[in-house]
C-alpha cells in the first residue's frame, strides 16, 4: 500500500489486494518506460496544507509520496521526464477504487470513488489520456503491468483476468 516505482522493459510491476485503493500506471510506448503507484487517497497537498500540486512545490516526504494521487503522479512524471520520456507520449491506465462494504461507505464518503475522481482530474490537468480503466464495483483486484508491451492485466477472485 502507498508504494510507487518507475521502471523500464522488460520489468513487470505488480500490485495486489486493491480494495478502495487505486493503482495508476503511466507508460511511454516509445521508450517502454513506465511508472505505477498504489494510491490510498487523492490529494496530499490539501491534507498537508501545502497549497496545490499544480504549483509543483516540493515538500511531500518520500515516505508518503506515493500514498496520494497528486504527489505520486507528479513524482512518476518527474522521474519519467528525467529518463528522457516525452510527456506527449505518455498514456495512463487505472484499476481499483471499489466499494467493498456498501453498508459502511456511501457514494459521498467512499474513498474508492474519491480516488477515482481525483486521479481522473489530475490526469486531465496534466493532459495525459486515460486509455484504460477497471474501477468501482465491490470486488478486490490485483494488477500486473508489463513494461515490455504496456499490457495491463487486472485479476479478481472468481473472475477471468481482464486486460485493459
Amino acid at each position, binding site marked *: *500500500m502507498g508504494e510507487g516505482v518507475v521502471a523500464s522493459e522488460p520489468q513487470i510491476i505488480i500490485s*495486489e*489486494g486493491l*480494495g478502495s*485503493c487505486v493503482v495508476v500506471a503511466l507508460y511511454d510506448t516509445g521508450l517502454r518506460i513506465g511508472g505505477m503507484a498504489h494510491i490510498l487517497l487523492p490529494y496530499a497537498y490539501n491534507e498537508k496544507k501545502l497549497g496545490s500540486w499544480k504549483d509543483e512545490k516540493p515538500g511531500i516526504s518520500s515516505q508518503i509520496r506515493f500514498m496520494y494521487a497528486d504527489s505520486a503522479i507528479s513524482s512518476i512524471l518527474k522521474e519519467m521526464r528525467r529518463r528522457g520520456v516525452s510527456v506527449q507520449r505518455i498514456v495512463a491506465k487505472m484499476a481499483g477504487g471499489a466499494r*467493498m462494504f456498501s453498508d459502511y461507505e456511501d457514494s459521498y464518503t467512499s474513498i474508492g470513488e474519491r480516488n477515482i475522481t481525483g486521479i481522473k482530474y489530475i490526469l486531465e490537468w496534466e493532459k495525459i489520456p486515460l486509455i484504460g480503466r477497471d474501477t468501482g464495483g465491490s470486488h*478486490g*483486484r490485483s494488477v500486473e503491468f508489463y513494461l515490455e508491451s504496456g499490457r495491463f492485466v487486472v485479476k479478481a477472485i472468481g473472475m477471468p483476468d481482464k486486460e485493459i
Partner: protein
Amino acid sequence: MKNEQFLTEEQMDYLTEMMNIGAGNAATALEQLFKCSVDVKVPEVRVVPSTKAVAILDSPSVPYAGVRMDMLGDITGVIFLIMPLEQKKQLMEVIEKSIPFKIKPGELDITVLEEVGNIAAGVYLMALHDFCKLNIVHTVPVLKVDMLQSILDEAVVRESIETQLIIIIKNEFILSKKKVKAAFIIALMPSKEKLNTLLHSIKGATDAIMRR
C-alpha cells in the same frame, strides 16, 4: 516490530493478558456455536504500523473472510475479524454437521461468520471495558469474502493512516472433539480522535496493576 513505539513491554504484557481473558470468554461462547468443547491458546497481541499490517498477516491477495464492525463510544474506529478462506470452510463444515436439519452448502456462511465476528468483537471489547474502563460498542457485523488487503484497505486508510497504529490479536482455538484448529485474527483500528484515550487507558490500567 516497534511495539515500544506506542506501548512499553509491561503495557504490552498487560494488554496481552486482557486479550487472553477475552479469548477465554470467546471460547465459552464458541462452544455454544460449535456444540463441542473449545480450548484456547493465549493470543498473540501485536501493535503494528498501519501500512505494514497486511504484510505481517499474509500475502495481500490471499482469499480471506472478513467481518467488519465500527466501534462507537469511548473508542471509535473499526474492528475486523478475519480468517483465511480455508479456515472458514473447515469451521462451516463443523457447524453444518452439528445442525439437525438439512441445509445447502454455503447457505449459513454469512450468518455464522457475522455471528462469530459479533461474538469475538463483543468479548474483546468487553475485556477492554473490564480492565481499562472503556465503554465501547460495536455495530452490526458485515461479511466480505475477497483478497485480504482489499477487505482491510478502506478502513486502514480511513482510520489508521494518521494514527499508524493497528492492534492485531491472533487467536487459536481447538475444537477438541472435532480435532479442528480454528484460527482467526482480530484487527482493531482506533480512530485518530480516540487514539490517545486508548493508549492512556492501557497505560493507566498497567500502572494500577504495577502499583499493587
